């Protein structure tokens, strides 16, 4: 165990954890966050995605010590029920979920990508989502929501 300082969704947490612990477990269990989820533990599906330094990363394979001191944003850090981020609102508007388990990967991957590629084409957006899995196959609505947000943010 060792002392690690973690900045998550604007709050700073002093934690005493095994530094090799994947970030996901610290977020889920030490900080009781619900957004990032364990899907595969192998970095294959995206359910555990968080944003660190503008990058969408897979928290299930990221040792917590590697992000110490960096700002970590989870799905609940993006916006709240009372004040959703416009991308989250686009998902509500398009009703773009079924079970909703995959949404951290879907929304945060799209967010990080569009932050860097504000002029991305539909094809580029689709390619950016290639590593994300939604087994309910809400693809049509999810892509529509992401493209809607992408269009509206450049206006």
């Amino acid at each position: 165990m060792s002392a690690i300082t973690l900045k998550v969704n604007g709050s700073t947490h002093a934690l005493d954890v095994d530094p090799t612990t994947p970030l996901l477990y610290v977020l889920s269990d030490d900080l009781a966050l619900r957004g990032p989820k364990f899907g595969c533990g192998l970095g294959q599906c995206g359910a555990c995605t968080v944003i660190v330094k503008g990058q969408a990363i897979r928290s299930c394979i990221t040792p917590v010590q590697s992000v110490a001191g960096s700002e970590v944003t989870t799905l609940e850090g993006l916006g709240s029920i009372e004040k959703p981020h416009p991308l989250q609102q686009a998902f509500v508007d398009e009703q773009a979920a079924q079970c909703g388990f995959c949404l951290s990967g879907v929304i945060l991957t799209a967010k990080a990508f569009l932050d860097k590629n504000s002029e991305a084409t539909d094809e580029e957006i689709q390619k950016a989502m290639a590593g994300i899995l939604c087994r309910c196959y809400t693809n049509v609505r999810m892509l529509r929501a992401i493209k809607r947000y992408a269009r509206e943010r450049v206006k």
Partner: protein
Amino acid sequence: MTADARAALQRAGFSRRDFLKGSGTLIVSFSLWGLKDFSATAKAQAPGGFPSGVSPNSPPLNQLDSWIAISSDGTVTAYSGKEEIGQGIVTAQAQLVAEELCVALDRVTMVCCDTALTPDQGYTSGSQSHPANFNKRNLALAGATAREALIGLGSQHLGMPVERLTAVDGMIRAKDDASKAVSYGDLVGGKKFHVAMDGKAKRKPASEWTILGTPVHRLDMPALVTGQAEFVHNLRVTGMLHGRVVRPPCVGATLISVDEQSVEGLPGLVKVVVKKDFVGVVAEKPWQAIQAANKLKATWSSGTGLPNHQQIYDYLRNQKPTRDGLLVDSADVDRKLSEAAGVLKATYNYPYQMHGSVGSSCAVADVQSGKATIWSSTQAVWFLQNTVAMVLGLKSEDVRVIYTRGSGCYGLNGVDTISFDAALLSQAVGKPVRVQFTRREEMAWENFGQALVMDERAGLDAQGNIVAWDYEAWLPTLGGRPGTSSPGNVITGFLIGFQPDAFVPRSPSPPPAAYNNVTNAVPSYVAGCVGDVCRGKGNVKGERVLVHTVVSPFWTAQLRAPQRLQNTFAHESFIDELAAKANVDPIEYRLRHLSDPRLTDVVKAAAKAANWENRPYPRVGTGRIATGRGCSCVAYEGDNGFAAMVLEVEVDRDTGKVTAKRIFIGADCGPISNPDGLRNQLEGGALQGLSRALMEEVTWDNEKITSFDWRGYHVLPLGFDMPSIETVLLNRPGENATGAGELSITVVAGALGNAIFDATGVRIREIPFTPGRVKAAISKLS
């Protein structure tokens, strides 16, 4: 609703504030379940003292108080035995209750699937929630009964005859004088109705609906997209520890020994738990449990071996003994085939596939002092109540199962078996324990969707009309849903010594007693006659359908549209083969042999949307990229929903890659309860069906499953080059509500295979349609 309950809902992520842009609709909160402090709150609100029902402590189905409670503030709490598994049913149920009770949607709270609180409605599965709760019984009848009971109470209160009264916006009031009114809260607030469910209570006609039948947004969507919704994976109970299981290395291996010293002194380790072949660890934190499970040295026997994957279809076909089921037999099929102008035969193969939930399964159990509480995303809370009791050696009335949202399951994924794991580990340490599978544990040990071997044979007359249809299939089974008394139907129960349901051979089959097409083994195009009663959807009189169930080498269970999808793939491919042989347009050919108006209507609707033109079939492209279109249809389970699909593809003849470009779906599931929710289901089903038809196949070597992660089990990702999807909904307010969640997925594989045939002239009779398989078939043709 009490302030406590409201606060609990807020913590669960279900806000009552307006979240719908511009709609002015308040969001109803509904997910109370699984909250630590919910039990007391909800129990206080819950109706009655739970007299004996089907389940030992669930409220009786025939009492209104089991379904509906009205608080003094006039808010309505409805209790249902059908839960949210991502299909939007909780929102639709809230719409139903609001409609029947004439209250605004935001006045309704749904509580679903808690063995201590809600009426026992069996499984939430098999496209049964919409028919169960939206026809004139159960929840819909409860709503109607409650409205009439309130009018009766209003009559007494206002001193006016019921004929002069109406229910409006949570009030009973005189039809002709709005000043004479009394609120629901004043009539029954906080009290019970003490009324039996009234079969004569009148449901509101669809023509008067203002909430039901409208595209209300999912009530849980705001919480889902902001990461606030509580999944069982997020549930944290005070004092909770974390478990992990250690599964055998291969199928059939048994435990020889466990070396507890191999994990001695590991930080946080609480206990190593061994029970026959079940091995698990419990630790203070999840990462500690994972490390302990990885380091624990267990010695296992060798496995029992598996049949050669390459020869699985021959293996299944030749399995003995069999359990035979004859579904229809006109007793003239052989004669008609021998007299036919032409006979066509084809064999179709469908592989084992998996649920492959994106979230590996998770459960939390608290087993202390002879009582157990299980938080699980099971589709079967009441069944699990009993089987958990068997696993733990408790009485079922001492087990409470609380449904808590999980990852989409699409049937029996790992959630029932991990509920047993959690229960066993919690019992061993006497504290609450949360367990989640690794990806490998999820995928290597789930109950797979069944492989099927399907022989089709039909005779045509000189005009190309079908005169006889003969179908014979082999399907493997082992285990399945644990039901009321078979924990050994899933891996954990088996490891602790329970056996799967016994296989009971039966050959030959007795003659069919009554027509039953629940698995869609009977093609839509035959008359479906048993005795003098013909309930098929077609007009072909010569008919025989024989299904052989055999023992599977792997656990199997329901996977979305179980058997229905596989059978429909064969039938809908074969009808196209017959159409091509008869040189008739495949849609015209279908319509020629169908007699059911609802099925023909969805076929016509899909064809119209796709602008289907009657042209030579197959077209067979010659360039590198060949385009084609295919059709497929189903009367799901015979009468539980109707769907047709037209699917357009591009096939790269050099690589064999198949790309679906456009999908058109015609669907009829009776009166539409929420058109947007229905579309969401149809779209998701279509693309999941595409993934299953193009990519998915469980693989194994001679002793173990090898498709145990997303590198080994191939599926379509979010970013694939997806088709456009157009859905045409046929609303049938006068018909019964049917299932909807399994409609579109059932027709994809057939439509896709037919489209590939149209594009290339190649008929592929084995799923999945991988590039390698398609390319090889094209090469063979040319």
